[in-house]
């Protein structure tokens, strides 16, 4: 069934929808009293959510046996990067009017800013090597490079945790989700594939009987 659905276009629309909604809200005056902060906050949250969605692909694939999640992983990762860039650019624009001197100084003056910047900057090489040719050229190094996404997701959650004033519930929820997704990867392989036990063994193509 999943094969029949146009999975890629659907996921594309779902991942692009927040950007469309934020834009529509901006032009119709529905961002509230503080539109700059609303744009910064909402784009940042979607960056984090899509990072987690990217990290959910492998567990979903192994637990369910579905193949379609793998086909949208790159797109989810690139959308996370897109929201991260929007988040950083909006901050730079509304906080510093894009004046690079004060912007740069501010980044390294405040831990939550430095952590957030490193998370977005760390996504640049991943986005830059996301196409098939880079994958083939880099081989095993591609896999190693792209494992840094675990660290970048952790930095993103830390950034969120560091900027809230007192109510840390939401950052802790994201931290919990991330812990589950990363913890899954530490499980022994058979446990990761626990879903296989619930499914009939895949049918193997029947071989022609051996000739005499």
């Amino acid at each position: 069934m999943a094969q029949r659905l146009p999975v890629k276009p659907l996921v594309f629309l779902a991942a692009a929808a927040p950007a469309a909604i934020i834009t529509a809200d901006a032009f119709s005056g529905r961002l509230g009293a503080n539109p700059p902060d609303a744009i910064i906050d909402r784009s940042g949250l979607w960056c984090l959510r899509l990072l987690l969605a990217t990290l959910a692909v492998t567990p979903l694939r192994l637990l369910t046996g579905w193949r379609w999640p793998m086909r949208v992983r790159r797109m989810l990762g690139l959308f996370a990067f897109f929201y991260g860039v929007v988040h950083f650019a909006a901050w730079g624009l509304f906080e510093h009017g894009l004046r690079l001197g004060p912007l740069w100084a501010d980044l390294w003056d405040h831990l939550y800013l430095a952590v957030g910047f490193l998370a977005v900057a760390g996504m640049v090489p991943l986005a830059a090597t996301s196409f098939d040719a880079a994958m083939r050229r880099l081989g095993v190094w591609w896999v190693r490079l792209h494992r840094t996404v675990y660290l970048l997701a952790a930095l993103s959650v830390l950034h969120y945790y560091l900027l809230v004033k007192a109510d840390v519930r939401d950052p802790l929820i994201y931290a919990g989700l991330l812990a589950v997704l990363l913890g899954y990867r530490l499980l022994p392989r058979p446990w990761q594939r626990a879903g296989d036990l619930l499914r009939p063994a895949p049918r193997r193509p029947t071989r022609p009987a051996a000739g005499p």
Partner: protein
Amino acid sequence: MIKRRAPIHSDRVTDESVYRGRRRFLAQAGIGAVGLLAGASLLRPAPANGTMRIKNIRPGPFGTDEDKTSYEDVTTYNNYYEFGTSKSAPSRNADQLPTDPWSVEIGGEVGRPGTYPLEDILKPHPLEERVYRHRCVEAWSMVIPWVGFPLADLLKRFEPTSQARFVELATLYDPEHMPGQQREVLDWPYVEGLRLDEAMNPLAIMAVGLYGKTLPNQNGAPLRLVVPWKYGFKSIKSIVKIRLTREQPATTWNIAAPNEYGFYANVNPNVPHPRWSQARERRIGEFFKRDTEMFNGYGEQVTHLYKGMDLRKHF
């Protein structure tokens, strides 16, 4: 087996006058809807629930001619954790709070302690409009036309003793109507405080309204403090208790994070919050940040209060 329908009680039958009135109701609803649409396009949004116009407000001192923040922004973008920690939660959740009747307990180092109905607290004080800048510790700001009276005038009525050095104020604790208090985000009830000479400064007011109307609940109805040279969290809302004390009171944000929120919490662009800068602020309604002024621009009135104090230490 045939089930019998339950008999219809006469009190569940629509009364005839109501039934006959349905066309009138529809007509009124229609007119109302048209009026609402017209009003929405021409005027600022209707005042929040339960506010009433206040009569006989005289203009007060220390005003600013800066553009006032719109009524809608002032009443929908609030930090009032008793009603939830998002900016929009207070305006959504606060209308459940009963603010009438209301009483205020006055105690500690005063000659006339007691619990007084709000009417008695307010009666002798002429109300004035004070257009103040309001600077949040989160680096945003507004300009708000408050309606209120000097805190000093209130405190003097209850005759502070010679021992009184601080004022402690507390917000209502009512988890049933203040859903934010059902979670331990802060150490409820919310408590704030001032040194007595700060409280006696003519800038410090008790507010009962804004924009000429009684306070909406999300802005701290029915009685709140406004100390415009300090970060917004000092201006405690929905006050039920005022005590004069010998010792510096323990205040809520200071308890929550002593290295981040000091007892004084004076607006100071030169002393950053440990996690973010306080040098600039976003005036609600503007896109880019502007510089923050020392004491939020009220240095002329309050600098003398802190003479000789290290404001990096007493932040």
